[in-house]
């Protein structure tokens, strides 16, 4: 059993989903472990709310579990996964009332752990930490204020670091539209974040 796990973990996403389609539920668990944080980060940046993002990630994996047979090995598994997550996020975004809810703590109370977001801050002073937290709040607020269609592309490109081709597969847009929206989104963010730039 232990010997099999490293072998399973070395398999590609496509191999794992095929194994899952054949009835190996352990493959599904491995896939969940690989993509849960990525999806959480993407959906949090897109929706602006932790609980909503958590619910959306759960819903994404449940849909993968239910509709596993719909995946065809033609496209990448990550593209298929991000497409499902994006659709769920758009549905949630349209349902709820738009509000900005960004907590500086940003942790799960029931987890029992004081989990915080990873802050790549090299200084240890309290002022710098508070400053970085404040920056993050401002950036998230700026992201929430731009149009969802620009935000989607900006987050996928600049935060998730996906290629233009992958963004085209996920959003269903052509590459020209993706670049155009990316440009406009960055321009808008630049205007909103000009005070941070000067610091």
């Amino acid at each position, binding site marked *: 059993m232990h010997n099999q796990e490293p072998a399973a973990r070395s398999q590609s996403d496509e191999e794992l989903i095929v194994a899952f389609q054949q009835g190996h539920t352990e493959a599904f668990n491995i896939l969940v472990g690989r993509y*849960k944080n990525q999806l959480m980060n993407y959906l949090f940046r897109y929706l602006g709310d932790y609980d909503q993002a958590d619910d959306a*990630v759960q819903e994404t994996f*449940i849909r993968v579990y239910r509709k596993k047979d719909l995946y065809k090995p033609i496209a990448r598994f990550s593209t298929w996964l991000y497409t499902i997550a994006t659709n769920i996020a758009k549905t949630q975004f349209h349902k709820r009332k738009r509000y900005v809810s960004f907590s500086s703590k*940003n942790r*799960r109370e029931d987890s*029992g752990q004081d989990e915080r977001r*990873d802050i*790549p801050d090299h200084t240890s002073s309290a002022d710098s930490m508070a400053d970085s937290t404040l920056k993050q709040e401002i950036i998230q607020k700026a992201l929430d204020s731009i149009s969802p269609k620009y935000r989607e592309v900006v987050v996928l490109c600049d935060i998730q670091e996906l290629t233009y081709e992958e963004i085209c597969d996920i959003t269903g847009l052509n590459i020209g539209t993706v670049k155009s929206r990316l440009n406009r989104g*960055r321009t808008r963010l630049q205007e909103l974040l000009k005070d941070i730039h000067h610091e």
Partner: protein
Amino acid sequence: MNDEIKNREHADNQVSKLLKNLPTVKTSADFEARLQRRITQENHPEKIGFFDKVFQAKFVPVFSYSIVAMIAVGVVSYYVFLRTGVQSPLSLPANESPVSTEEKAVATPPGESADSRLRESKRLTKEENQPAGNDETQRDKQISPEGKSAMKQAEKKADAVDDKDAGELNAVQSIQSEAGAAGALQDQIQTQTTTKLQERSLAQPSAIGTQQMIQSSQIPNVEPMYRKSTSLLDSVRQDSLQKAQKQLQLLQQKVKSKKPF
């Protein structure tokens, strides 16, 4: 131109740098456990009982409105149909049952009939008209043939009158019998009402009014409804009796007047 493009690229790079430097948001520690629980619930859904399906919170307004509507319908139907449908127990039917032939036979005195009376009257008239034995032959010899034909005609007329009288006597007797039957019927009605009231009093012993009604029905002068019916019957009976008496008198006069000898 190149400066603008460069500036723009520089700005874009700064924005993307800021975004890339944002910390990665991670899931909670129990994320996978919760996910597994949801998947298990989907695979094995909880069976909801029939009553849990029916008596849900969202159906409470519907049930309450339906109960209120049913109560309103019950109250309205009670006041409309039940309270206005009560009738007086002493309301007697207007049309009485016709007197049967048996009652007529009972009403007429036994032994007497119109035919027997007619026979007697004929016998008497014949006895009066027919003297004893020899006298008849002598009389026949004395009477002329014209007189004989006249006598025969007179006899025929007398027979016709007798038949008429018999019919009238029959009518008189029928009227008398009807009057007697009316009286008997009146007694019958009285007994029937008293029995009915007694039955009702047994069914409703607490009703004092029924007891009073029984007592009043036995005394015809007390109950106005019953009094009206008895007075009507009495008046009819009296009228019929008077008519019969008058007709009898007329018939007797006729009979007396038409005696040739």
